[in-house]
């Protein structure tokens, strides 16, 4: 049936759509979706794929959205233009979610009646199961190749050349070149079926373009962070598997196997331990950094909870260590495969007593790499745990990114006294503030000098690391740690601001950034200009205060229920600035979209504008 064409489609049909594949988990649709994404990207069209998957190995519904925009927006859109429906269990809901004027490619055996028979969408029935049964003789491969059939159908309907799909298949099956032909046969099956049986009656199309994707690649944040660990000199990694962070350590393992192994001896310049739990993982990290190595662990919220006690020890005993928290929705059994920025305030003060940590907030793949490398320098420089908080969206989804830059600076190992320096200084104190920056000197076990040894303890200690319960000694030590924290403000990644003196400012961090980019364009189209500051680390840099001071109304946008960064700003900045701040929050487990910002923001501004 032919739908009436809504107004937006008349102007906006090429390269501006979201394709949703609704399939069953474990059916191998991931490969098909990645091939589709890669093929579109090869046409020079910006892509933003989002995998919305269940906590399940096989059988539950899963969705994969490929958003395509000429502008290159990287955030999710809540509008679904093209649906591929291959899951009978979600058929009704999936049809409902397609926008008016959209397209539904579906398994031909699904009944299009009642609520699923919409007047305002175009249906393309395809007998996927029948085609696969007739043409794929290998029963084991059948369900996987069925997905490639829809890639072929979409290629025909939207205008992707077969050769482009084939090139994408070669990328996808780089390590299994034999699979390319089998999969391409299935793609052709789809192309041929569509060419012979479907009449294109919608306006959506993809056409090659230039200027937006040249020199870019597709990479996920966990992979980029793992490369940061390799280039940042991490040699000890301890981890406990947890979604969505597992692929960070797994990538690190695979890079170490490739690039840290001596071909002759088989020796590997990295020790990677799958620990019994997160308590052990962070313990191994601190044991390793205490002994002088660069070490990391990666986890998600539940694991971070288990690390709380050790995080305090690391803070007080002043041990470096890098902790990646790829955030997900809570609690332990909450929504492990859904995204959230829910650990910001928890991570910042993780542990008991007075603790305040350095927290890095990467928002892009490039930052996932750069901040990962930088985290090791900061951890050594400040002799403290450094938390790198990304989220499932950044960690596990593919993003367009410029190639990651080769580091030009050597490692910053911070204030370490070796035997020669000890000979020179004659006396030192492990917790003495020599330069007034709050950062003491340390020695490493194995240093051959009578002055090198000291006793590391979390409990009360004086400047010489001797046990002390003296009230003044304890307080002085805490004050020094505050000084150290303040010093860090200028060393952590500084905020990025676009400040043109408008009345209204937006503050965001992490992956929320990408929705802010689109939201500001949408607002701007409506004649509403905003300034923007992206926080990239805690503690807050001075620029954050200045930005808030300059704007009457500042909307803090984030992906959690309680406005965690908003609260931190209110508690950390001068009280009079609180009046400038308002909170916009998104917390349903799927990545934030632009409308989640523009709607509440305009709602709040309406009285002001009026």
């Amino acid at each position: 049936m032919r739908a009436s064409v809504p107004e937006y489609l008349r102007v906006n049909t090429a390269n501006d759509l979201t394709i949703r594949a609704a399939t069953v988990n474990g059916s191998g649709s991931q490969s098909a979706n990645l091939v589709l994404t890669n093929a579109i990207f090869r046409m020079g069209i910006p892509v933003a794929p989002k995998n919305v998957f269940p906590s399940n190995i096989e059988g539950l519904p899963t969705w994969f959205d490929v958003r395509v925009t000429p502008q290159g927006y990287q955030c999710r859109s809540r509008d679904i233009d093209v649906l591929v429906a291959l899951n009978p269990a979600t058929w009704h809901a999936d049809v409902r979610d397609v926008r008016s004027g959209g397209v539904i490619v579906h398994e031909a055996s699904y009944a299009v009646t009642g609520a699923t028979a919409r007047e305002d969408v175009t249906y393309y029935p395809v007998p996927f199961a029948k085609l696969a049964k007739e043409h794929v003789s290998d029963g084991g491969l059948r369900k996987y190749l069925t997905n490639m059939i829809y890639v072929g159908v979409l290629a025909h309907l939207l205008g992707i050349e077969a050769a482009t799909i084939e090139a994408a298949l070669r990328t996808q099956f780089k390590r299994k070149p034999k699979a390319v032909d089998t999969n391409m046969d299935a793609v052709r099956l789809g192309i041929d079926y569509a060419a012979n049986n479907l009449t294109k009656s919608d306006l959506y199309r993809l056409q090659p373009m230039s200027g937006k994707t040249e020199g870019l690649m597709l990479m996920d944040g966990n992979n980029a962070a793992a490369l940061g660990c390799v280039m940042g000199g991490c040699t000890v990694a301890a981890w406990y598997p947890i979604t969505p962070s597992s692929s960070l350590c797994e990538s690190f393992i695979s890079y170490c196997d490739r690039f840290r192994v001596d071909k002759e001896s088989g020796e590997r310049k990295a020790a990677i331990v799958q620990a019994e739990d997160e308590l052990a993982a962070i313990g191994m990290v601190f044991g390793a950094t205490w002994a002088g190595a660069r070490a990391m662990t990666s986890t998600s919220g539940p694991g971070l909870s288990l690390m709380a006690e050790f995080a305090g020890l690391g803070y007080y005993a002043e041990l470096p260590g890098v902790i990646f928290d790829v955030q997900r929705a809570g609690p332990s059994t909450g929504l492990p495969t859904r995204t959230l920025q829910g650990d910001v305030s928890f991570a910042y003060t993780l542990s008991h007593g007075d603790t305040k940590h350095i927290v890095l907030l990467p928002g892009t793949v490039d930052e996932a790499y750069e901040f990962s490398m930088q985290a090791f320098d900061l951890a050594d420089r400040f002799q403290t745990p450094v938390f790198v908080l990304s989220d499932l969206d950044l960690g596990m989804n593919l993003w367009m990114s410029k190639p990651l830059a080769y580091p030009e600076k050597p490692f910053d190992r911070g204030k370490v006294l070796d035997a020669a320096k000890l000979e020179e200084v004659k006396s030192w104190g492990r917790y003495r503030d020599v330069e007034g920056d709050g950062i003491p000197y340390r020695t490493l076990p194995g240093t051959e000098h009578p002055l090198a040894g000291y006793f590391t303890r979390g409990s009360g200690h004086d400047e010489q690391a001797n046990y002390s319960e003296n009230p003044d000694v304890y307080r002085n030590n805490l004050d020094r740690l505050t000084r150290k924290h303040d010093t860090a403000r200028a060393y952590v990644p500084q905020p990025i601001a676009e400040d043109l003196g408008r009345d209204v400012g937006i503050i965001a961090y992490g992956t929320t950034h990408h929705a802010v980019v689109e939201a500001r364009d949408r607002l701007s189209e409506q004649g509403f200009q905003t300034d923007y500051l992206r926080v990239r680390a805690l503690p807050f840099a001075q620029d954050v205060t200045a930005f808030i001071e300059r704007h009457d109304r500042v909307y803090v946008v984030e992906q959690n229920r309680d406005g965690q960064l908003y609260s931190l700003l209110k508690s950390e900045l001068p009280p009079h600035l609180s009046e400038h701040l308002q909170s916009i929050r998104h917390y349903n487990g799927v990545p934030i979209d632009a409308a989640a910002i523009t709607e509440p923001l305009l709602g709040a501004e309406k009285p002001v504008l009026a």
Partner: protein
Amino acid sequence: MNTNVNVRGLSRDVYKGSASTLCAGCGHNSITNNLIKALYEYGVDPYKLAKMSGIGCSSKTPAYFVDRAHGFNGVHGRMPSLATGAKLANRELMVLGISGDGDTASIGLGQFCHMMRRNVDATYIIEDNGCYGLTKGQFSATADRGSILKKGQVNELETIDVCGLAVELGATFVARSFSGDGKQLIPLLQAAFSHRGIAVLDIISPCVTFNDHEGSTKSYNYVKEHHAVLHAPDFIMGSQEITVDYEPGTAQEIEFDNGDRVVLRKLERDYDASDRIGALRTMHEARERGELVTGLLYVDTAAHDLCERERLPKKPLAQMNEDELRISREDWAQLMAV
């Protein structure tokens, strides 16, 4: 030759630490003294020694020996992970972990188990008094069933036999001894230092304040009456000549990778310290009889340790720089090719 120095040319004072703040007569102090002697005689390099501990009375003791060495008093029950990390970072370190029965068998049981499985090259001492000292005398998980607390409570729970557990989990050197028996303890400690892999020593160490009364199975008197010694160990440095002749069949000699040996002289019974099943049987039978068997219960000198299994280079990871660790520019360019 100066007789006041050891093979490393260091005096005994170098192996001492701060004064103990534990109770007078505490078994742990005897262990510290025996440890100082063992380390001194062995000629341990103080700069290579890493003293690790968790929390509790036992875990305070690393402050009481080898002042000059680095020490790390971590969090409760987590010494194994700290020790594992330290060893991975710098495999040249001689890692000496000191724990207690609460630290190991209760809060740290998980980490203990996995350190055994990993066969981390380290010495793991459990100063075992069957109770919590710092929190005033509650039972720990190594308290024997039927043992009685000072105020009369009876332990109705089964004990956790850390030695049995260690053997079960693949530990490659498992010994039990008594804090007051320096003659047995010192050679066992030195053998543990020479062993490549995890060496566990469960040292019964009476708590004079909370667990040294009638009815306690970890009291000085109880240990004296129920002590069953497996064999008499002698430790022989690789460089030393054997001056004693052992009649065939009267001793078991075990040689470590570094050439050092421990000779287990036979006493009343035959015991083969390389027999894993036999070791488990001996421990079970002793427990049934209410005996405390001590000696080198089990040893396997051939198993790979963690650093070997990880195929770590000889050079400590902690000492590697950016040139050794970063991907080359050529490989990087290929990785980043779009």
